[in-house]
């Protein structure tokens, strides 16, 4: 990556950031407000039921819910923005030859920025609610986030190209992600799912990431480390194969818009 590519990347991030919240009175605060209201609604409805099923206090449930929400949101935004990145810059891509991968990277960076802010808030809330956060737990959470980021990056190399060829993918993805929200045990404990359906959570990487983050955040426990490491290696492989696929197919993309 040369100087200009990096400047271009920064410029795209900056512009997207500015544009996303420009013209609204609360501007950037929407990043915080939207998940907050989502949290509020889910908390009011589910805190009693879900809390008692898991033996969590309502403070713990608040952190439990928040952490699930932000991890899911990170995945959701990463998938949607990563997939749409090439499409979104179609006007530019047909006019000038710049390093296309910059577009994918900058879109995912947006998701990462949002997530970092959200994570900061969740940690602050946890501290306020007297939840003891361990250093090791925090490192583990960061490792999980890094793994997820790589996975999103690898996936986006494929989906960003596919979307240009099959526009339906946009709607399909939204649907899948909506299903994933319920299948990831974001606002209810896994124990509430009937036993014969628990495999859905077991085979759902997002659910397992969420679970691991929660255990680390609330109890300082390092759980499911084998899965996280396998996911990390898989994600790295995905990025390598994905970037190969991307570089091969991106050359012709300008003809397909």
């Amino acid at each position, binding site marked *: 990556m040369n*100087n*200009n590519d990096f*400047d*271009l990347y*920064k*410029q795209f991030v900056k*512009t997207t950031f*500015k*544009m996303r919240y*420009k*013209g609204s009175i609360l501007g950037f605060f929407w990043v915080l407000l939207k998940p907050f209201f989502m949290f509020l609604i889910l908390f009011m409805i589910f805190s009693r039921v879900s809390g008692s099923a898991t033996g969590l206090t309502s403070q713990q449930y608040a952190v439990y819910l928040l952490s699930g929400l932000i991890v899911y949101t990170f995945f959701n935004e990463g998938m949607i923005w990563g997939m749409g990145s090439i499409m979104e810059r179609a*006007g*530019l*891509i*047909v*006019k*000038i*030859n*710049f390093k296309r991968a910059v577009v994918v990277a900058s879109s995912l960076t947006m998701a990462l920025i949002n997530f970092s802010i959200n994570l900061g808030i969740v940690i602050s809330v946890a501290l306020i609610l007297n939840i003891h956060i361990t250093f090791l737990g925090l490192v583990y959470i960061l490792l999980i986030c890094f793994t997820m980021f790589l996975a999103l990056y690898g996936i986006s190399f494929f989906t960003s190209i596919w979307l240009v*060829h*099959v*526009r*339906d993918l946009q709607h399909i993805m939204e649907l899948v992600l909506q299903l994933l929200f319920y299948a990831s045990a974001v606002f209810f404990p896994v124990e509430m799912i009937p036993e014969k359906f628990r495999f859905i959570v077991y085979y759902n990487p997002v659910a397992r990431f969420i679970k691991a983050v929660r255990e680390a955040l609330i109890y300082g426990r390092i759980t499911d480390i084998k899965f996280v490491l396998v996911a990390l290696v898989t994600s790295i492989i995905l990025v390598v194969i994905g970037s190969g696929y991307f570089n091969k197919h991106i*050359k*012709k993309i*300008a*003809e*397909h818009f």
Partner: protein
Amino acid sequence: MEKNIAIKVENLTKKFRIPEHGSPNTIQERFVNPFSKKKMIDFTAVNNLSFEVKKGEFFSVIGPNGAGKSTLLKLISGIYVPTQGNILVDGKLVPFLELGVGFNPDLSARENVYLNGIILGLTKKEVDEHVDHIFDFAELKDFQDLSIKKFSSGMQVRLAFSIAIQVKSDILILDEVLAVGDGEFQKKCFAYFDEIVGKKTILFVSHGLASVKKYSDRVLWLKEDKTYEIGDPSEMVEKYSQTF
């Protein structure tokens, strides 16, 4: 490649596979018409074209709409990939297929200078150095913080042109961007062209036959039937003029 050649195009062919009735990009369209694949047709935009542009040469491309001029420029710019043949480019090439690429109407003029400049290949530091000069040249010094959707189209083009000429390049690809702004600004643009003619290699596409004749060293005439001729500017322009 020989030393004095800037662009070398060898047996270049570009075909597009296009469906007969628009592109089936959604599943619905594919579903409604599952045999759409059979209706794909090959459209040849550029056919077996070869030419060389020497370093420092002002090389113009003329021809009617649909002759393949824009496709050719996009191929040389690296936006399209050739179906057959080769394109060799020696030096940094900057395509101006359109002025103000990436301009965002909601951002201020200053922010757009950064965005557009970096998209065209400048580093942020270089834009920092040139930003004042850009606004001077564009005569838009007092409008730096205004969002450019409030600019007149003339103002936008002036700004875009002023950014474009700051990009250091050996080869410029210009697609009908000469006539910009009012009379006075046009003078400035032409003064700029007079300055760079002979120093930079210029590949120029235009319907403005007068400026083609005035500046060009050689002219490539792309015809509707995908044949072509290369020759002396006045001769080519003369011949081309007789076709309509």
